[in-house]
């Protein structure tokens, strides 16, 4: 791919500008849906953009005693990772800009970067590298990142490839994997909501101030980057899950319908779940769920080995 096209891809479509606009649009849809569920009018369509610009032009206060370099660059790294991940997925239902064998694994790692950066940011500002601070970050990672990864591996194994575009292709030809791997779908969706701290699937552990602690310290640019990064992750996550579990994304229309459909479900879970909230056993259930996802994976591998095709 020549350099000009590459730059366009990174900055405008499907990366950069398109991702920014898309993420802000999805944040709007999410907030609007939640508001409607709560019987309110909700925000205007340009609200996420206004919030972003406002934060960018606001004064940034750097707390005393933190590592200044880390403080400034962690949000940038998080956002950059999210943007990069967007280049590997079938954004807008079109073929991913770049792809190679194993890009699924790379993408998952890129998505993990966001959580890691937030965790480190929290450790930096709240506990200043204390052991407790970094332990909290790791706990957060294991609670949701690992199951999310496992859930994405399921369809990959069924498709027999580690390349996202090929998994997407496989998904288009076979039965929707939400049917054949329902547990994986559930784990993936909940994992995504947990990563993004969408209610009610926050980390099941007690001390999660690391994440909220990190964001509390930021104002201005850093906060803007973290927030935008979360929106991008939402978009990327929804795209991946619909591509893998909802029969692949062949064109922009399918992309829109399937991702917005998933968004509707997450918004509903956010607001209506106030009544049906998972109780104290959420921690145990969650680990059990992750284990079951693992078991499902093993079964898949086994079936493949025996030559059974799903």
């Amino acid at each position, binding site marked *: 791919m020549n350099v000009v096209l590459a730059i366009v891809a990174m900055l405008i479509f499907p990366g950069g500008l398109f991702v920014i606009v898309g993420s802000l649009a999805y944040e709007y849809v999410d907030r609007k849906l939640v508001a409607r569920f709560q019987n309110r009018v909700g925000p205007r369509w340009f609200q996420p953009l206004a919030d972003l610009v406002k934060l960018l032009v606001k004064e940034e206060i750097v707390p*005393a*005693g933190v590592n200044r370099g880390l403080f400034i660059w962690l949000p940038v790294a998080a956002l950059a990772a999210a943007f990069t991940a967007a280049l590997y997925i079938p954004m807008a239902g079109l073929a991913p800009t770049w792809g190679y064998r194993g890009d699924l694994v790379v993408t998952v790692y890129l998505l993990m970067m966001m959580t890691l950066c937030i965790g480190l940011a929290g450790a930096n500002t709240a506990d200043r590298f204390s052991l407790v601070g970094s332990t909290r970050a790791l706990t957060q990672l294991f609670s949701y990142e690992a199951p999310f990864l496992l859930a994405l591996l399921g369809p990959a194994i069924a498709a027999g490839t580690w390349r996202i575009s090929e998994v997407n292709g496989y998904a288009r030809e076979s039965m929707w994997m939400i049917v054949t791997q329902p547990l994986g779908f559930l784990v993936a969706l909940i994992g995504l909501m947990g990563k993004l701290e969408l209610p009610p699937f926050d980390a099941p552990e*007690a001390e999660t101030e690391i994440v909220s602690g990190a964001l509390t310290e930021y104002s201005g640019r850093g906060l803007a980057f973290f927030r935008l990064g979360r929106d991008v992750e939402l978009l990327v996550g929804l795209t991946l899950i619909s591509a893998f579990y909802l029969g692949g994304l062949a064109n922009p229309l399918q992309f829109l319908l399937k991702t917005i459909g998933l968004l509707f479900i997450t918004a509903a879970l956010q607001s209506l779940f106030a009544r049906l909230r998972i109780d104290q056993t959420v921690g145990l259930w969650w680990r059990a769920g992750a284990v079951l996802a693992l078991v499902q994976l093993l079964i898949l591998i086994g079936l493949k080995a025996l030559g059974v095709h799903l």
Partner: protein
Amino acid sequence: MNVDTTLGGMTELLKPWTLMSRAVSDTRLEVETTPSGIVPAVGALKGAQWGFLSAITGLDHGAAAKADTGIAVKAMGDAAQNGGFEVLYHFCRGPSVLTFRVKLPREAPAVPTLSAVVPSALIYEKELAETFGVTIEGIPDRRRQFLSDDWPTNLYPMRKDFSPGSAEGIAQAAPVAPPVERRGTPGTFIVPIGPQHPALKEPGHFELTVDGEIVTHASIRLGYVHRGIEKGAEDRSWIHNIYLMERICGICSHIHSTAYVLGVEKLAGTAVPPRAQAIRTIFAEMERIHSHLLWLGVAAHEAGFDTLFMYSWRDRETIMDLLEEISGNRVNYSVNLLGGVKYDIDGKGADSLRRGLDFLEKRTRHYLQIVTSDESFLRRTRGVGAITFEQANLLGTVGPTARASGVSRDLRVEAPYMAYPDFPVKTVLDTRCDLEARFVVRINELFESYRLIHAMLAQLPPGDLAAALPRRVPEGEVISRVEAPRGELFYFIKSTGGVKPDRVKVRTPSLCNWAAVLSVAVGHKLADIPMIMVGIDPCFSCNDRSITVRRRGTEELWTWEELRRYGISYYGGEA
């Protein structure tokens, strides 16, 4: 032991320490005693399990300071009373009030602390010490409660020789800078950011010491809303004070002004027309409705259920509309006059009321169902924050908090006032003692309020809206106790026959309940604290309360919001 629990019986019991006793009315007994006699006398009272300490009033009989109120001192008939202080300890049991009176000299006034016998006395004694300068001997805790730490030490605002004018200079003086903890290289200024950088050691509203997750010690520091109202009341006419008392609390403004006018009317010996009393009562119940719905939303928000908060506040708008339709204002309805009410409820108003209440009743059933069956809600409330019956009694809790622990304290039932004698109230009790019980009690009280208003509307007495009161209220002392949404509201009003009151003492119900909360907090998880505190329906004006959390030898300053989120995420929710 068969103790005669009537006031007459108590007179007998307290004889050994009595200098003089006087039955002011058939429900009020006054026993004068000495500083050395007060503790054993109260001990005897406690032994007979008679009543609970409702309030401690300080009085300054000093003649000199009458000058700035412009009233000539009327001889009280007892020369020894002039120029000294007096402390009144009010113990209440149902409709009866037993008041111990202790006279103190002007220089070095001192009384021993009651807190060993009556733990809830501590808060009232501190108020007495800070505002009157009475030394409380043996007080276990010398920290200030009501006045700020930088208030000058020998200035006692409730004394007659202190006028608010003299505070002008103090209020606007540059605040004393609290000590700044310097970290890092010398000369660097620490920006006070973050929950774990308490660079400026300000007093948190609450101080919690935790061992791991469990709270081992809790204490409270009030005073953020201390405005100096009691002193202000001495400087305003009887009518002007109605408007001041209304604004002690925006949520229960009507009940405050009601307690006040009922007291003044008693002093003046005025009979209020029954229609006025009924209208006052209807407003009181409407206020209870709005207050309980407000609390439901706030409590839901504390637990992280913002949807329930939104729904309950949306429904609450119905009662706000009704209040506005009849009185003209959503908050501070200003219904009361001295001698009656300003507004009437006509046919149209009554119809709107009935319709609105029917709608609210349906919604309330829905909320009752949520509160008693929603899994995650119950996890934060069932079995949490239990205040046993004995504790509730001992610690002097009032209102729905007490009733949820099986303590049947409801002034509308025990000492019916206004229209309650004609429209009796059924006490809503629950014996489960935990947070869930407090939710259930308040919601069931809503049903009772709906029923009451319907009954009163159906039988609204005809007649005048107000009777006339003299401009100068005859001298005397009166105690006015009413049932606010949060519990017993206690007013002590003293007149020396002038156009302004000599003393207005207000004891709000939340003050009674803090002692219970603090003692119950110990042993609970830190994540439960927000719900336990909100369970007594505290004055939520201090929503920016900050909490000092001591753990592992370090001290962190949390905001209320952080503690709330901590509680929510602990229980697996979204903060």
